[in-house]
């Protein structure tokens, strides 16, 4: 839920990166964090296991600039991708304003992508959201690997509602900011209607 503070003249929005385990959600955030000027970002908080797998969430606040005299601050979250952390995923979707689904382009991860996408729809519904009504972007990550499914086939399989689709290699930053911009624009556009 967007939080508009007239006293501090701030618009705060929540964007969640969703997707199967090891698809690159945390890598997206890490790249945004590493590439952003210090004054535009807060700390990158990672609640991770000892082996660096996301346990609860990763979080970073990002300031994009001012619109109509209001600072726009995006709170970026990732969910834990592993199947058994579903309770945590549900909690993180609370109050979401926009979702990025990060798909793993490798052939052997196709089933995991589909399962995670179903899980996203289910969990959104539990929180009272409809994916069709929510700002949403699909990112096809790991495009640099040799065993990837062609973009056209992957899009055909995973695209839900004509949402923008971006090819990405999150570890070197390719497509990361295009994805973020696309979802942030949709969130702000939504603000004009509500």
């Amino acid at each position, binding site marked *: 839920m967007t939080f508009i503070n007239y006293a501090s003249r701030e618009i705060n929005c929540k964007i969640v990166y969703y997707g199967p385990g090891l698809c690159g959600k945390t890598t997206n955030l890490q790249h945004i964090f590493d590439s952003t000027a210090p004054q535009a970002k807060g700390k990158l908080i990672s609640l991770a296991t000892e082996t660096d797998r996301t346990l609860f969430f990763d979080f970073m606040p990002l300031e994009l600039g001012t619109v109509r005299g209001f600072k726009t601050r995006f709170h970026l979250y990732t969910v834990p991708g592993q199947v058994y952390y579903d309770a945590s995923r549900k909690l993180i979707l609370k109050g979401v*304003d926009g979702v990025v689904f990060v798909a793993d382009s490798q052939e052997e991860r196709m089933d995991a992508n589909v399962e995670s996408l179903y899980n996203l729809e289910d969990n959104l519904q539990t929180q009272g959201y409809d994916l069709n009504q929510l700002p949403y972007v699909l990112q096809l990550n790991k495009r640099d690997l040799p065993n990837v499914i062609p973009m056209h086939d992957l899009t055909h399989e995973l695209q839900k509602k004509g949402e923008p689709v971006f090819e990405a290699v999150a570890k070197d930053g390719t497509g990361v900011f295009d994805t973020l911009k696309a979802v942030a624009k949709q969130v702000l556009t939504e603000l004009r209607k*509500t």
Partner: protein
Amino acid sequence: MSQSPFILQEQQFLKIRSVLERVRVECAARVVFLVDRDGQTIAFNGDIGDMDTTSFSSLAAGNVAATTSMARLIGENVFPAVVHEGENESIFISVIGRSLLVVVFDGRSTLGLVKLRAKRASFDIAAILDEMIRESQLIAASAKPAFADITDEDIDSLFS
């Protein structure tokens, strides 16, 4: 569908800050926050030093979300308060509707005092939040949304 924005007007912000100041003084606390359950800082009063308040609020909300889910697993509806006691600094979190009152205190105060003062303040905070929610809904229901005037150019300029 995305939900209507939660709108905090300046007058309500000042009221909330004054309640937080009262709690901080009465509890001899270091700092007192009011945080939205989605993790957004609504207001705070006190000495934050170099604390990252945005991260702090997000983690406080995550903490309460997790303990609320744990409560449900054992048949409780909610744990209305969460306490973390440290060697020097401690944190008391009280759930007030869709917000959290978070008190950071040290050896100058006691948990009993913090609980008592927080409980008293919770009624005032709940009343202000009710007013905020009512007004947010009125704005959402009005013909002209709060940011109807934002243009595509305004949005594009953020990314240029």
